[in-house]
């Protein structure tokens, strides 16, 4: 059965594709390491182990946030491209254009932060970027916004190409998501999960990016014409509609690695099903309408909007637990699983996602948000599912790809050590945030009260362990990606 071939021919990367894929992933790995260094610097500063002045701290925080979100999107876009290209005809120029526009955007953001001293955070909450009290200028804010627009245009180009290819192959987006099988009919067992997930991402994230573009362009107008002002609540809604979907799309793009690869390591088919199609259809709606849970403390919002944010936050847990995580666990349960670095990372990613959304769902409760909002509870849950969920999905694919060069999954002693170091570091780091959140430690502060510092130090140690493991993974994978693909054509059956 083709689905259980460890390194199928259809995944072979011809020269142009291989170079572009390598550009994406090597850039992403280097950026992940650099952004983690910035994260460690902040935790060290809060721990009083490093002198980080407030202006530098907030610049670093802005760079870390924008950089991590952007890099996560870059890497998971490559995951989506890697699998989707097997089923529909994608154009390499669109994939490459996205990369080049990302680079232009990244340069603008880096320049805005480290040259222009922009420190309005990745969420650019109106009107702070144009109200810096002398900390940075409007030019730096505009440069930051233009950087986002470059990255957004690149993503939209890639999604438009994907949408055209999907529609060309399946007729329309609904059929690609399998909506025709929601209420009956025989599901095509070969309908690819990656196509279902990609279609959902194209729909949701295109809307989110357009919302972001609207607010960014309005910002640029406000910078050019200071007499123009926006409604702050309206701008915040648009910002979080964009921000929520953009970062959540990385999970939905990354999880394609689990859908595509897990069965090859377990040796057990991972069939598409009606619950799977329902979960993706529902998730598409949920991710579009759930963003008001970021504005639960804006009491001026209509009550029904806040209730929507809470209720949909709860509902969003259903597809994760009942379909994706359940499906992955039952796929490997007593399967005779062949454990290697890629399969370990795949299961780690499922754990990180499942465990990390629990505190996130709790925080989506209005009554709980009243005492947890903007405490370290928030970075606690999103680092949990991004660091221990999404990033391992990307690393799993990369380990799988470098394994394909040798026709065997990589599993050296250092690899076997790297995964638990990453897990222990990540857990320590994320749990320190969550523990601090329940102690009401504020997030996004350059200096902390004396009683908060012991917790910061635990977090700093955890972050350092993650960084250590990530440096190893980056070196190992970059070396593997740059190897001559001599054995690439070798394909063999798993199990």
């Amino acid at each position, binding site marked *: 059965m083709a689905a259980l071939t460890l390194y199928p021919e259809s995944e072979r990367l011809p020269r142009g594709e291989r170079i572009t894929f390598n550009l994406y992933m090597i850039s992403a790995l280097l950026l992940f390491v650099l952004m983690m260094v910035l994260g460690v610097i902040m935790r060290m500063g809060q721990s009083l182990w490093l002198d980080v002045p407030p202006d530098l701290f907030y610049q670093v925080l802005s760079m870390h946030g924008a950089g991590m979100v952007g890099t996560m999107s870059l890497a998971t876009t490559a995951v989506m491209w890697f699998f989707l290209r097997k089923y529909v005809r994608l154009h390499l120029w669109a994939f490459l254009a996205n990369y080049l526009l990302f680079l232009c955007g990244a340069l603008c953001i880096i320049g805005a932060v480290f040259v222009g001293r922009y420190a309005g955070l990745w969420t650019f909450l109106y009107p702070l970027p144009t109200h810096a009290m002398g900390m940075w200028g409007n030019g730096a804010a505009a440069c930051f916004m233009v950087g986002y627009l470059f990255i957004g245009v690149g993503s939209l180009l890639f999604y438009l190409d994907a949408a055209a290819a999907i529609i060309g192959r399946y007729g329309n987006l609904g059929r690609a998501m399998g909506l025709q099988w929601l209420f009956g009919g025989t599901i095509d067992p070969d309908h690819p999960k990656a196509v279902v997930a990609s279609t959902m991402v194209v729909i949701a994230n295109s809307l989110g990016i357009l919302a972001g573009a609207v607010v960014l362009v309005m910002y640029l107008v406000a910078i050019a014409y200071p007499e123009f002002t926006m409604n702050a609540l309206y701008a915040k809604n648009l910002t979080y509609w964009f921000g929520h979907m953009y970062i959540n799309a990385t999970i939905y793009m990354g999880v394609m690695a689990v859908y595509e690869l897990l069965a090859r390591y377990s040796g057990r088919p991972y069939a598409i099903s009606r619950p799977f199609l329902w979960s993706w259809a529902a998730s598409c709606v949920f991710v579009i309408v759930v963003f008001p849970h970021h504005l639960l403390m804006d*009491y001026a919002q209509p009550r029904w909007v806040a209730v929507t944010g809470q209720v949909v936050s709860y509902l969003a847990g259903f597809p994760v637990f009942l379909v994706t995580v359940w499906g992955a666990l039952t796929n490997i349960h*007593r399967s005779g699983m062949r454990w290697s670095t890629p399969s370990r990372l795949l299961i780690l990613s499922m754990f990180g996602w499942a465990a990390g959304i629990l505190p996130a769902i709790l925080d989506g409760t209005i009554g709980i948000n009243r005492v947890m909002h903007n405490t370290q509870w928030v970075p606690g849950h999103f680092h949990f599912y991004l660091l221990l969920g999404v990033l391992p999905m990307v690393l799993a694919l990369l380990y799988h790809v470098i394994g394909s060069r040798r026709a065997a999954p990589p599993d050296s002693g250092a690899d076997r050590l790297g995964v638990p170091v990453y897990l222990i570091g990540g857990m320590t780091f994320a749990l320190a945030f969550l523990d601090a959140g329940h102690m009401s430690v504020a997030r996004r502060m350059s*200096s902390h009260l004396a009683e908060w510092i012991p917790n910061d130090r635990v977090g700093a140690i955890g972050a350092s362990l993650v960084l250590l493991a990530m440096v190893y993974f980056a070196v190992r994978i970059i070396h593997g990606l740059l190897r001559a693909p001599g054995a690439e054509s070798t394909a063999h059956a798993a199990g």
Partner: protein
Amino acid sequence: MIFQDLVWTIAASGIALVALVFLYIVANAGRAIDPAALSTSQRRIAGLRRGLFWVLVLVFVGASYASLHRFPIPPQHAPLDAAQVVDVQARQWSWQLSQPGQPPGAALQLTAGAPVEFRVRSDDVNHGFAIYAPNGRIAIQTQAMPGFTNKILHTFTQVGTYRVMCLEYCGLGHAPMVSSFDVAAPAGG
């Protein structure tokens, strides 16, 4: 039990439960099940999933009702009729807290046991108005957003000094943007 401790206990228990399930599955993943027993096992797993679905539905309905039947945010467009009122004005990077009829800068006169209405506004950018109880935990918060008034209705149960901190990043002076006020015991209390 402090509310935040309860939330942390629920979250930690959930994370631990997920971890245990993963450990169990991972520990057994290396052993292949007899192919003849596979279909029986899959039927049992499908049954378990149906059970989990209904458990989640029950939790969803129960938690939604428990957390929403008394809506936690007071009406924003109707008078709250609280006997104690505080006007909060946020600006980069200070708080101005005042009571109607009191001279600007006068210390707040607040007592425990009776509701206090806080009318929170901002002069410039978004701020987060968070009241920290004497035990160091957040008692209540809302956003201070330019162009809007967010109203809190809160009854203090603890006498002592409360700290106000900004919980929405607002620029260089965000961390030191603090204030405080005292809450006294009710007269005759």
